[in-house]
């Protein structure tokens, strides 16, 4: 077996997994707090990529330097994704807080359909070329055939985001409030936590990581369209379930496992059935370990 090919697939899988992880975090955080599969989360990621592209193009045409364009586009994408995530929660999920879970899920599907077609109508149904915002590094040349510099940037960004997120949840006041809310909403409210605010913050944080993922993947692959959020969202959801939905380290682990298996599967076996494989993987995991790798089995009291 060729070691270099193996290394390439391994690192490719790591990159892929990092992107999935960034999206999966949003799923798992929202699920952890309000037990809702936010079906429209993939759309937030797509909107992040679109906003990034639009702002980047405008500023490039105005003649801004590359670095400024990257920073401005990134900021805009994050701000707008957060705004969409926040608004979405207020419109489609908040009125349904006490409704049956099926209702909230159907509402989420509706939201996903709505946002997808909104972008389709407001922008275009074609694939748009995305400028590669991440520059190639000179010093990285000798290794570029194994791991390109954008891939390196993706992995490093993911690690940084993970560390920041862990810090946010473990050591800040809002993080503590989030953990409390996810354990027991009623009790948290009795202790003076503004549950509505915590849920909004969760949506905003989740959307921000999705937007980062959106820009990174778009500038890595080089093209976007309105449909990109759907399959990425599903795969990130697979990753979140794989790791145990509701658990943040689980989501990262699940995403990496999914990234690697996909990468090796397409590298060694066949690329036609890549998406089929992701779904099969999900089905198999759910049958044998319904609560995921790091998840705890739920016991229900009557």
């Amino acid at each position, binding site marked *: 077996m060729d070691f270099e090919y193996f290394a390439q697939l391994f690192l490719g899988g790591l990159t892929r997994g990092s992107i999935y992880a960034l999206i999966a975090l949003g799923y798992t955080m929202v699920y952890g707090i309000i037990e809702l599969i936010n079906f429209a989360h993939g759309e937030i990621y797509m909107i992040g990529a679109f906003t990034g*592209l639009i702002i980047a193009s405008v500023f490039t045409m105005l003649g801004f330097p590359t670095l400024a364009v990257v920073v401005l586009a990134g900021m805009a994408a994050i701000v707008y994704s957060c705004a969409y995530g926040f608004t979405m929660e207020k419109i489609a999920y908040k009125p349904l807080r006490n409704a049956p879970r*099926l209702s909230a899920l159907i509402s989420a599907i*509706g939201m996903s*359909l709505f*946002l*997808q077609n909104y972008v389709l109508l407001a922008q275009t149904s074609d694939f748009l070329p995305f400028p590669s915002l991440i520059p190639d590094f000179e010093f990285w040349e000798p290794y570029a055939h194994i791991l390109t510099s954008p891939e390196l940037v993706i992995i490093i960004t993911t690690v940084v985001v993970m560390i920041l997120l862990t810090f946010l949840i473990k050591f800040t006041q809002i993080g503590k409030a989030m953990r409390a809310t996810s354990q027991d909403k009623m009790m948290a409210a009795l202790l003076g936590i503004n549950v509505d605010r915590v849920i909004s913050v969760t949506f905003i944080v989740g959307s921000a990581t999705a937007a980062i993922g959106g820009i990174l993947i778009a500038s890595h692959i080089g093209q976007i369209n309105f449909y990109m959020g759907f399959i990425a969202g599903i795969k990130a959801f697979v990753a979140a379930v794989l790791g145990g939905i509701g658990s943040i380290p689980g989501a990262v682990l699940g995403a990496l496992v999914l990234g690697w298996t996909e990468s090796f599967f397409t590298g060694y076996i066949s690329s036609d059935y890549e998406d089929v494989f992701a779904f099969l993987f*999900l089905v198999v995991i759910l049958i044998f370990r*319904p609560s995921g790798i790091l998840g705890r089995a739920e016991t229900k009291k009557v």
Partner: protein
Amino acid sequence: MTAKDEIKKSFLASIWFMFLTFPLMVIKVNTVTDTVEWRWHNMVLVGIGAFFLSMLWRYLLKRQADGSKKEKKEGPGIIQRLLQKKELTLPGIIIIGCFTLLFPHIFSMYQTNIMISALIYVMLGLGLNIVIGLAGLLDLGYVAFFAVGAYSYALLNLHYGVVFWIALPLGGLLAALFGIILGYPVLRLRGDYLAIVTLGFGEIIRLVLENWNEFSFGPSGIANIPKPGLPGTDLSLQGSTIFIFYIIVALVIFTIFVINRLENSRIGRAWIALKDDEIACQSMGINKAKTKLRAFALGATWAGMGGVVFAAKTTFINPASFTIWESVIILCTVVLGGMGSIAGVISGALLLILLPEYLRDFGQFRMITFGAVLVLMMVFRPGGMIENVRKTYKFEKN
């Protein structure tokens, strides 16, 4: 709250939405020629729209909150009361029956074709209604069973020359088999996991059909599927369309009959009970796994038969007709009409399929409207247009 506050709130909402939709609605970049198109008029539209919609939104939310406080003592709505009137049933059936029988002779071929598609959706909606409305299992891969039916007719006909009338029950059976194969492993899953797994299953079927060229002829699909024929006669194009129309009408009537009977049968009640409380249901001696499997298999059967009719009607099928959004449209018909209610599902399907057909200019807004409808229905009227009325028993002292 005063009117001033209302206006202030709506004004803020309008500013917020103008900000929110700014990059996507206003700016349009052309990355090839490097030009930017500024569409400021969209911003004005969004601002005005958001102002009034947010007022309406708050009014409706408030009305709903007041309504739930008053307790629902009003009883069933007008349509339900009309449906319950026994003396209206017979004339109603006669009028609707005459209308459907004469339909292909009154209207043009084009209208009949549209009506056939709508009726296929009615059948699919009624089948999905078993799974979602009665058994409470959210199945997002329902279109897979539709695909199984369509492909089983197309392939059996291509390889073995199987005719429509044999393919029809066979397609249903094969779909039911697929329902059992899928249902068996996923029964343990909770509601929302089940939704995603069924969605995954639907996509697997579509992707396999798209990639397995030797089996399903890939994305190019299968053409020249024969229309059903009457033994001994040779039907013209118009004749065969009318014939298919009557077949699908008969199938829809059959579906309504079966589901109506099922609803009040032992299985039907077990489904409804299972939907409400699994644990209580199991402790009453209902086999959870078996009951759910039955729902899956029975729901899939209708989709399979619908698929056979679909293949016969269009004479050409390819995997593009069986995407996840097709499942979502079927789901939409069930949700809009009213989960669990037969009359609701029928009117929901007819409305959702016929309306976009007749409002052609509206076509591009079709999917976005479906999305909005799903959200709005869930927020304001979770029971659907024609809400299902549960049987209630009253004990009266004599």
